[in-house]
């Protein structure tokens, strides 16, 4: 008998399907520089997160994103001298020279890109638990699994730690002082968050999780798979005209890794692979395929380069198809 999920309201579907969605959405965020698409992608991520958690991002999240965009814009304006639309021209010297609108727009699109990645990772953190990630760690990469778990728990722990540190400073007579406080909190924040992450890693080890789990044949299979993957990528890179060999090795390696992941022992709560999960997986994979095709065939549709003279970024249906496919969780999620 399969135990009833204690968190039915919080079960978001099969983690592997979500990993596929995250891979697609994160790839889109990393490959796209067009501000319109990045804005839409950010909106998609917010909508998806709201659909699965019923929580909109906190005000502090929006503040963080605004700060990132502003910082990126300011840095680019201050240090880039390219572009023809001069907003301000200072005498040559320290930080002198032309300050251009193109540099500002390039900075905005860089900031939007970072924000889109963060919003996608926010969804990821809401739907995939550290334990889900650990259980999916390919054989031979268990230390990476533990590291991934630490990375995944670092952000929420850091947020909690920052609140505690901020309170602690006030308790010791230091009034909140915005940027100054944030700067002074960086080191203790990192230490506190790492201490908490290390506590979880210690618990993992004490509970029997390690690089040697599982042992025997599966571990050997994993090691062979990683060598095959590296060889396949190498072959593809060295002989791009004859990709068959390299791609064949890559596919073989991925198959071996999947076999390893699928056989890493029984689960107390077996995960069902229902139609919404299949749909999410397939639509996310489709988004990834379209994105890769665009990247190889028409990279100009994804990028935005305002230099040398400003032009408004365009909109094309093909990237919009990618973004539309990434809205899949909004429709595949059940209401319970």
């Amino acid at each position, binding site marked *: 008998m399969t135990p009833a999920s204690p968190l039915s309201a919080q079960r978001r579907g099969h983690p592997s399907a979500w990993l596929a969605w995250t891979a697609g959405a994160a790839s889109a965020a990393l490959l796209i520089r067009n501000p319109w698409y990045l804005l839409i992608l950010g909106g998609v991520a917010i909508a998806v997160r709201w659909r699965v958690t019923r929580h909109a991002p906190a005000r502090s999240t929006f503040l963080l994103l605004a700060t990132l965009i502003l910082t990126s814009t300011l840095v680019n304006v201050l240090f880039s001298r390219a572009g023809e639309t001069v907003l301000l021209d200072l005498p040559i010297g320290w930080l002198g020279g032309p300050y251009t609108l193109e540099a500002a727009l390039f900075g905005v699109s860089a900031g939007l890109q970072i924000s889109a990645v963060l919003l996608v990772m926010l969804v990821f953190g809401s739907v995939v638990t550290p334990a889900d990630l650990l259980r999916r760690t390919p054989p031979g990469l268990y230390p990476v699994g533990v590291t991934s778990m630490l990375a995944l728990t670092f952000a929420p722990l850091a947020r909690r730690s920052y609140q505690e540190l901020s309170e602690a400073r*006030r308790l*010791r007579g230091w009034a909140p002082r915005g940027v100054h406080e944030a700067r002074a909190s960086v080191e203790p924040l990192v*230490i506190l968050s790492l*201490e908490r992450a290390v*506590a979880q890693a210690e618990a993992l*080890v004490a*509970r029997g999780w390690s690089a040697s*789990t599982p042992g025997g044949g599966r571990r050997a299979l994993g090691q062979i798979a990683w060598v095959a993957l590296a060889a396949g990528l190498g072959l593809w890179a060295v002989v791009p005209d004859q990709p068959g060999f390299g791609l064949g090795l890559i596919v073989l390696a991925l198959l071996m890794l999947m076999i390893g992941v699928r056989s890493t022992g*029984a689960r107390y709560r077996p995960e069902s692979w229902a139609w919404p999960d299949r749909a999410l997986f397939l639509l996310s994979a489709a988004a990834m395929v379209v994105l890769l095709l665009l990247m190889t065939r028409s990279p100009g549709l994804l990028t935005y380069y305002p230099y040398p003279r400003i032009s408004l970024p365009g909109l094309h249906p093909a990237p919009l198809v990618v973004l539309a496919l990434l809205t899949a969780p909004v429709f595949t999620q059940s209401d319970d």
Partner: protein
Amino acid sequence: MIDLEQVSYWYPESTTTALEAVNLRVGEGQRFLIAGPSGAGKSTLLRVLNGLVPHFYGGRFRGRARIAGLDTRSAGPVRLAEHVGMVFQEPQARFLTAAADDELAFGMETSGAQQADLQRRVKEIVERLNLGPLLGRPLDRLSAGEQAKVAIGAALSRQPGLIVMDEPCTELDPPAARAVVDWVEDLQRRHAFTLAVSDHHLRRWLDHVDQVVYLRAPGRLEVAGAPSKAAVRLEFEDSWTAAARRLGWSADIDPVDLARGLAALPSPSSPGRRATTEARLVARGLSFAYGGRPALVEADLEIGAGEIVGLVGLNGSGKSTLLRCLMGLNFSESGEIWLDGSSLRSVPVAERARQIGFVPQSPGSLLFAETVEAELAFTLAGHGLHDRPPIDPSWLLQTLGLTEVRLSYPRDLSAGQRQRVALAAVLVAHPQVLLLDEPTLGMDPPAQRDLGRLLRDWATAGTAVLVASHDVDFLASFVERIIVLENGRVLASGPTADTLFAHSDFRTSLQRLTGRPWPASAEDLRPHPA
């Protein structure tokens, strides 16, 4: 089951020994308690038993440790996890899943158990440990006592021969702590595992273990013996031993004789309520809710200058919320707070902190400086007092037993020492009101006594002190009045001994022994002339 031979250990980059030539042999099914002052190496010794030391922590390890016949140097924690289940000091920080039964299953999943075995074992544990009511509830919504139960269940899930517990009751209220101890004893009787537990609260475990091991800093094992004999040989004094010594009776007096002797003592006439000076901190009608769930309901409070008041209540009764509201960290939806007659409504926390010192329950986040001395300097600078400290920082460090570690990195210290550093970091500004949330967590009895005496001295000088604590023996020794909170409401307020006795959950060790409200602690007894 446990065989340690000349085990010495140094943490990475440390020149001082954490454990020094420790020899220990414990048979299968035996239960032993590890006692010792803060920083003596109790947690380190427990981590030797499952191989976390040295495999997870690194450092230098000498000697030989064999657990269930396995040499921990070659076996390592993963292999030892089959034989050793560990319950950490703060279980909530170590949960790896979101639900109780997932947590129970995690260890078995990593061991490669088959699906059918997994389901059967989890069901078995849930039934045997009576964890059914906890299923279906997220772990972070369980009480501290329930979390401890899940952690113990998870440690037992792989049916290890040795269970290691590092202060499992530290954060529990008295009834929950007693329930966990009784539960562990019952489980041990049924499953016959070997038990190693560390706790500063000796009396809690003395009737439930076969052997007591005493670690003296730095990491030297000095006393080991049967509980009845060991308790009186330790430099720690539990309340029974302290009472017997105070009266000039033999320290290893039989408990029945001690109870009879104490009952025969004439009770002092009921202490009249002290002539309170002016009310220093007053709160009326404080309410607060977390996400719509009321945590504090119309709470009233009044603390006079020079008064030490204790705040007791079960886990989740609203103690910490009340202190946070008084400090301004939680904004009370209703009610008003006055300090020396002035409303604090619009006074920000940083300004309030000059007059009201608050040490939260987990003070780890209070510590960010490079040295203990620098922590005190940081507070003084925050209040603009760095060139004219209201009290001598060196004196404060000495009073709190921190002189030797004044140049140490605070986060490298033991839990009890960190607690004292956090206290010092707040006390150095010499606030007129002190709010302390579980200040004795992780503190050994001598350090607790020093803290109690310090609070008395400060109260004598006019400071108002409010101490929220599960440690009723500490409160009975040092506070004058008790406030009882229940479900966010003030249930009672009155003289310490009578109020604690009137609420059976909060009776002290001596009150439980004698069945009488007086004496509530050894401090109530007139010292026998030497």
